[in-house]
Structure formats: C-alpha cells, structure tokens
C-alpha cells in the first residue's frame, strides 16, 4: 500500500455497476429498436438509396503521324454490363439476354467470370452492342434488373496503314492481367491500358486521368439522382502522341510487302527518326478490339509465317555481308594489313580440312580492300579476319550497336548475339573451337545474330560518320546520342565511298537499288544470310540523300535468295516513291511560284 487504503463502500461499488448496467441497457435497446423493430424500414431505405460511384473516362490520347494525320483515335461503342448485387440468378439472366440479343450464352458466362471483380462492381458482358440490341434491352429493362448498357470509348484505327507492330494495342484490365500490371492500384477492372508497342511505352502520356461521379441508384440500378456533397471529379483526356511515322510511306511499303515475309525500316539517319516500320506478314490492329473470335486468334497464333512476331525488334538474323564493313573499319584503323594488299579469290578457300565458298563460285581473282566490299568477296574476308583478334572484332561490333539494345522506344527488343572468345569457350569448351569459326563470323554467317533495328543504327552511323541518335518514334529528351569516337574521318569517308560504289559501280552488288534520279545519291550494302530454313534471307541496308532529304533503310526478305537480287529492288521502289514524290511536290511549288 502506498499512502492510504481503499475504503470505498459496497454501496458505491454496486451503484457504479448499476450505472454501467443502465448505460448498456440504453445502448442495447436503441440498437434493438433500429435493427430488429425497425429493420424493414431501414432495409427498404438501404435498397432504395444506394450510391454508385461511377468512373468517368476522358478519351485516351490519339496517335498522329509526322504530318499530323491521325493514325489512332477513339470511337464510342456500347457495352452490356451486369451488376452482381442486383441480379438474382445469373444463369437464368444470361439465358434471357442471349435469347434477347441473339448472342452466345457461353461467351456471356465466360465474360461474366472473367470480369467479375466484386459483388458490387459492374461486370462487362459483351461489347459492340448494335442499336437494335440496345432498343431491345430498353424494352425489357424492367425484366432484367441489374442489366444495363453504357457507352465506352474504344481504340479506332483511323488510317489505312496497319502499323500494329509499333502502335501496339490496349486491353481492358481484368482479374487475370491485373497481376502483371506494376502500378495496379491505379487501374480498375474495365479500364484501358496500353499492352504493347507505343501504347505501352507511352501509357502515362496517352492515358486519361480518371474522374468519378456519385449517383444514387435504386434497387434496379436506375439512377435516381446525384448525391449532394459528393463532388464530381472531372476526367482529363490523355495527351496526343505525335510520332515520326510517315503514314503515307508506311502504307506504301505495307502494300509493297504484301505476300512477302520480312521487314522494312525507313529512317532519318542523322536524327534517328523512324518513318516506316513494316513487318510482313502483318495483322490488323483491330484484332485486339471488339470481340476477337477464338478461331481467328488460333489462326493467327498458328500461322507458320508468324504475323505476331515483331521481326524488326525481335527477329534474330545472321547479318550476312552487311557486317563486312566492320572488319574493314578495323583494318583501316589498326593497319593490321595494308588496304592495298591483295588476296586471290578462286571462288573457294581452304582452311584446315574445310572448304569455305565465295558467293561467286567463278571467283573474283585478285581482290584488294575496295574491291572486296564492292563485290562482296568472301575470300578476302576469310583471309583478313585471321589478322583480327576475335575479342577486338567483337568489341568493334558492340560499338556499332550489335549485341545490345538500340534504345528504341518500344517496350522490348532483342539483344542479338555477338560471339567472342568467352562465348565460344562457354559454348564449345576452352579447346573445343578453332579459328575456322571466325571465318564464318567475318562474312556475317554463323553465330552472329542481329535484329533489323540494330542494322538501322549501324547504317545510320556510317551516314553520320559515327554520330547519330537512338532510333525512335517520339521526339524527346530521352533519345540519346549514339557515338563512335575511335574511327577516323578518313576511314568513314573511304567506307562510305565504297558503299556508294556498291550501288553505283558496274560490278557493285547493290546496283538494283538505284532508282537513277537526278541529284539522288544512294549508298548501301547487300547481304545474303544463310539459314537452315531454306533459301537465304535477302538483306539490303543503305541510305540516300538528295538536297536536305536524308533517308536510311533496312530491307530484309526471308528465304528468297540474294540480297542484291531480291532486297535491293525493293529499296529502289521505296526510294523512287520517296524522292519522286518530293520532286513532284517541288515541281508543284515551282508552278505555283511561277504563276
């Protein structure tokens, strides 16, 4: 005991307990009155007076081409929604709807499961309701409590071009895909989210800022008024995205590539802008909007030509002869052999007990560095590569952007493969490989694998003497420079001269690329990539310049034959289209000026 003892009387103790008893009796009585006596009255009130928080959406930003032409915008569509807390028996409701709207009941119940989030959240049943279906719904509204329709915005592809591989698509957030969204708390079921391509890369830019509206609704989901004191939050539309794409050119090349397998990229070599980005075969960007039938899906998924593959960023190809400039740049910079040194090409080359072939089986005769590139003589490179250490060669390749990301503003891209000693040691064991592997590497066959977008940066570096920018669709500060500093201007000049001769020399392998337009300079390199799937892939990379209009391009056609024969003519058609178009515009201007 501290100081004084507890002397409280039993009467006061009992009094306090009685007080506690009274207080709890009051509370229990009041709750009993509310919950039991007047229960029906409040139940009615809760049913009638329900609030519904509805998300308000503003349009997602549009995607425009470089001239301001709309490529992707939004169009309204009507969707059928179901409110689980109001619907009695979902199965019978679905069978009524499927009869009423003449649609598949299994699809309805599948969607109901797929988009079911919670007892109080509207579930999306089907999209693209027709006016007739809406009218029928209106007629039977009272028979279908908890069934409603509403207007939403859907992606609409306004231009004739496809471009689905870089535009990407949006999906509705549902209970399955929300697990893959990192910022999932910002999304509700049914919201649109960019799922691939530019739609994904620039999601934060294109996306609208959601608003919210509170509505009082009755037990049938009918809106009976606004809720006082709950402010409506106005949604804000997403921002428009202006791309570097030239939709006219894109469309032209898409048409040109119909029936072919491969890809074409056209870019601006100094700025890294991408004007055309064509994969073939393609698929319609509408594939992911509206109700995609599973048959259509399976057809696309099982197509041996892989239309869903983005060949430009994810297709891995041997670069073929297009890579030959790297060995020459090394020779010119490091003087491991004299540029004038000649090797004799008989059409084949023996190394150890293996025979390597030149593409020209008749042989090129004596070949120096210049002739080796212009005529793309393999034997010269078989000889030359033996003077270059493998790791040095690999390092040079990486400088040109191979074996790494190009930084293109799409959600993902492949790295490709640049083999070096470490790679071969891992693959074949330390002693398991010979210099013979290097011979294939020198001519771009074998284990070197590149993506077409890497080839674009590669050719851009030649045009700019080693100072270009990352390939991109959207101009922004995120676009970084791509620089090569340890190659001298002389080397660049000499190699660019050779690239010019490849297209312009009588014996150049790329002559078919030249559209012969006055004042137009075209340079490029052919490539023929051997592969186990049949005929070699035809490659042509290059650039063209006239006045201030500079364009670089990468053309790849799968399993068609030689680059000079198959890919170069495509380049000619594209260049004719680009530069004759400009000529016409200029002529028109001149006419107007003359008047």
């Amino acid at each position: 005991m501290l100081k004084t003892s507890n002397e409280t009387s039993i009467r006061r103790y009992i009094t306090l307990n009685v007080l506690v008893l009274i207080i709890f009796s009051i509370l229990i009585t009041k709750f009993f009155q509310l919950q039991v006596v007047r229960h029906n009255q409040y139940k009615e009130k809760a049913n009638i007076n329900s609030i519904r928080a509805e998300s308000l959406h503003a349009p997602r930003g549009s995607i425009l081409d470089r001239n301001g032409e709309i490529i992707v915008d939004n169009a309204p569509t009507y969707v059928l929604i179901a409110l689980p807390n109001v619907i009695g028996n979902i199965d019978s409701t679905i069978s009524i709807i499927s009869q009423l709207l003449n649609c598949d009941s299994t699809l309805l119940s599948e969607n109901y499961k797929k988009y079911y989030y919670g007892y109080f959240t509207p579930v999306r049943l089907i999209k693209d309701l027709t006016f007739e279906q809406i009218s029928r719904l209106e007629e039977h509204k009272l028979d279908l409590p908890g069934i409603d329709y509403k207007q939403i915005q859907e992606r609409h592809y306004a231009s004739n071009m496809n471009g689905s591989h870089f535009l990407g698509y949006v999906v509705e957030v549902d209970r399955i895909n929300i697990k893959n969204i990192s910022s999932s708390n910002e999304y509700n079921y049914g919201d649109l989210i960019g799922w691939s391509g530019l739609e994904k890369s620039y999601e934060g830019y294109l996306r609208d800022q959601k608003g919210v509206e509170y509505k009082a609704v009755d037990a049938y989901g009918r809106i009976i008024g606004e809720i006082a004191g709950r402010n409506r939050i106005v949604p804000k539309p997403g921002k428009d995205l202006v791309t570097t794409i030239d939709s006219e050119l894109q469309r032209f090349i898409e048409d040109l590539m119909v029936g072919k397998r491969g890809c074409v990229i056209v870019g601006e070599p100094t700025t890294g802008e991408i004007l055309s980005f064509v994969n073939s075969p393609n698929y319609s960007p509408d594939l992911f909007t509206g109700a995609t039938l599973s048959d259509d899906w399976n057809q696309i998924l099982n197509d041996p030509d892989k239309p869903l593959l983005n060949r430009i960023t994810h297709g891995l190809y041997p670069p073929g002869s297009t890579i030959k400039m790297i060995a020459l740049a090394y020779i010119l910079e490091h003087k491991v052999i004299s540029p004038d040194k000649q090797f004799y090409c008989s059409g084949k080359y023996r190394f150890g007990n293996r025979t390597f072939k030149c593409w020209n089986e008749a042989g090129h005769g004596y070949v120096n560095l210049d002739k080796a590139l212009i005529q793309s003589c393999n034997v010269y490179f078989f000889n030359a590569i033996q003077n270059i250490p493998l790791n040095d060669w690999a390092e040079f390749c990486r400088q040109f952007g191979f074996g790494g990301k190009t930084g293109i503003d799409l959600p993902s891209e492949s790295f490709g493969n640049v083999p070096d000693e470490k790679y071969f040691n891992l693959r074949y064991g330390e002693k398991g490989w010979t210099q013979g592997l290097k011979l294939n590497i020198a001519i771009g066959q074998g284990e070197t694998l590149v993506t077409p977008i890497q080839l674009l940066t590669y050719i851009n570096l030649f045009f700019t003497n080693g100072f270009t920018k990352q390939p991109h669709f959207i101009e922004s500060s995120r676009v970084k420079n791509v620089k090569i500093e340890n190659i001298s201007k002389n080397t660049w000049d000499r190699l660019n001269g050779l690239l010019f001769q490849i297209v312009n020399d009588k014996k150049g392998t790329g002559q078919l690329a030249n559209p012969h337009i006055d004042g137009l300079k075209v340079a490029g390199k052919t490539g023929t990539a051997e592969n186990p799937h049949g005929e070699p892939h035809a490659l042509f990379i290059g650039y063209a310049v006239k006045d201030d209009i500079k364009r670089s391009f990468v053309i790849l056609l799968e399993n068609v034959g030689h680059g000079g024969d198959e890919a170069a003519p495509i380049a000619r058609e594209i260049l004719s289209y680009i530069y004759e178009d400009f000529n016409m515009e200029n002529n028109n201007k001149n006419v107007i000026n003359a008047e």
Partner: protein
Amino acid sequence: MLSMRNKTTKVYIIIIPIVFLIIISLMALYSISLHQNMQFYSSSFFKQLIFLIFGIIALIVMFNIPIKLYHKYSIIIYILATIAIIVPSFISSSISANRWIHIGSIGVQPSEYAKWISIIFLARYLSDRNIKMDNMLSFTIPILIILLPAFIVFSQPDLGTAIIMIAPILPILFWVKARPYHLFILIAPIFSILTAFHNISFTLWGIVLVVIILLSKPKIWEGVTVFFGNIFLGLFAPVIWNILHPYQQKRILTLFNPELDPLGAAYQIIQSQTAIGSGGLFGKGWMLGTQTQLKFLPVQETDFILSVIGEEFGFIAILAIFLLYAFIIYKIIQFAYIVKDRFTSIILIGIASILLAQVFVNSAMTVGLIPVKGLPLPFISYGGSFLVSSFMMIGIVLNFASHWSD
C-alpha cells in the same frame, strides 16, 4: 460481498473479451479494405495488424512497471503530457491536423495518452492525504487537474476527446466518498443552461431541482443559493446567447450538434442508421454490406466501424460486443473495489470510466442518440495511437489488479 476484498479474483480473464473484440475489429477492417482499392500493405487492415504488435508490447511494458513508479512520476508525466498536447497547436498550421505530433513518418496523438495520464496524477492527489470530501471546495483541485488538459484538447478543437477526458471526474469523486448531492450541484448548471431554451423542459428541470434540494436537506441559505443560482443562470443564458454574433452562435451549435452542418454529419448519421438498421438481426453477411461496400458509410474504419459491424453481422454481433465491453468494465470496477490501495483503486475507476464513456459516446453517435462526432471505439476502431493507448490502459489494469493485496 464484503469478504470479496480478501479473496483473489481471476485477473487475466479480461484478456479474453479483448481478444474477441480484436477479432471482430480485424474482420470489419478486412471487409472495408476490399473497396479501399489499394495495395494490401497500405490497407488499414494490414496497418492495424502492425499497430497490434506495438499495442501488445506497450501492454507488456505497462504491466511490468512497478506501481511505486506510477506514483512517483505521476506529476512529471502529467506536466509532460500537458505540454505534448499543446505542442501540435504550435507546430501545425492546419486546424484539422492539430492533434498530431509527427516523429519522422509516425504520427502520435498525445491527447490519447493524456486521458489516463491525468487520471494517474489525480489519483495521487486524492490518495496521498486522506482528504475528506465533505464540502464542495475540496472538489476544486481535482477538477482543475482534469480540466487543464481537457480544455486544451477542447480548444484544438476536439470536443469528443475532451468529453472522454472529463468523464472520469464524477465517478472518481463518487468513489472517494463525495456526497451525491454535491456531485449533483456540480452538474446542475449544465442542465440549467441546456434546458433554458425550451420552456417546458426548463419548468420540469426547476421542479427536479427543488425536489432534489429538499430531499438532501441542506442548510436553508445553501439550498436557496443553489436553486436561484441555477434559475438565474438559465434565465440569463438566452440573453447572453442573443448577444453573440450569429457566426459565433453557429459555431457553437455545430460543435454540439454537427447535424446542423448539412453536408457533413446529418448525412453521416442517416447513412450510419441505415447501415445498422438494414443489417437486421443477423446482418447481410461478411463483406456484403451495401452501405459499407458502396462507400455510403463515412469514416468506416474509425468513427463508424460499429455501423459496418451492425450492417454485416447484425444485432447479434452488436449485442455480443456490448456484453464483452460490459464484462470488461464490470471486471475493472470489481478490481477497483478489491484492491487494498486507494491510489490504484482510483486509477482503475478512472480507466473503467474512460472505456465506458468511449463505448457509450461512440455507439450512441452511430445511432444518432447524441450528436458528438469524431470518437473511435476501443479495441475495434482503426488507429495506432488509440489502439496502443487502449492496450496501455489494459496493461495498467492487469498490473494493478494482479498486485491487489499490496
């Protein structure tokens, strides 16, 4: 019954109802977290689990502090607590955030702790000397001890917490043998003012006043003073009221009757009543309350969590909750009766009063019995400071009760 003081009683049994209350709380918070639309780790359900760990630690700490130390340091802690509840008013510019002290990212609400800290100091004052509570002058210091922190909290303005801080004064004075008549005189002026604006009520109050004064047979001049003092106060109240500016009147009115704020409390009370009433006898089912899930109910995880429970689990759950609280409070009063020392006895009565007041004010508010708003429900409402403070009180109860014979 008298022999009870010499018998030991099961002390730890009060943990059982608390565990049940916590389980009900977590079920309700989990249901609420469904529509909070945020990551699990930032939901109030998960955070409350973390707070629970702190609460249990705090309970163990309070349980192990020797009673002598409570006695010895009661003054210093009281002064520090009083300063702590003033501090937020100075360092915070926004009115609503006036009750919090932020230490890093953790916010602490000092007034939650000041509730029982001032009780400890009051208990020391009343137990150090054997004060005879035979006249009303002896109430002065006890009332001042309680009113000082309560007034600061009231001015912040947090009427709810201020009421909880004042609530123990009458039970404690009653416990230390103050005359019921004196306690009546203490609260009579409040009734005089409140009834003054309504003729019939004021007349009835006057009759009650006369009857009680006559029954307790005071000296004539004393009885006359009390009666006319109260009557004059009642008559003057409307006069003073009319002198006030309309905006001042409105401010006072909304403080005591938030329903006058049309977009705020009236709406909330109606929604709360609808939630509770529509729950019925057995409730709508866990996670199935329309009022709750459609966010119709305001401040669900704190002030109106009882409405969530009433809606989803029904009257059965509400009845169980009240029985659990009644049992806890009954046991604490029982401990207060059997402990041999006056200091600890007073503190126990104080804690029982705080818990009772909190349960009453919060539940009465959710059904619209009384207008005050902004009070949480012990062991059930979400909130770190509040939960930890409640656990500390239980730690003190267990500590004192298990040393009942000291």
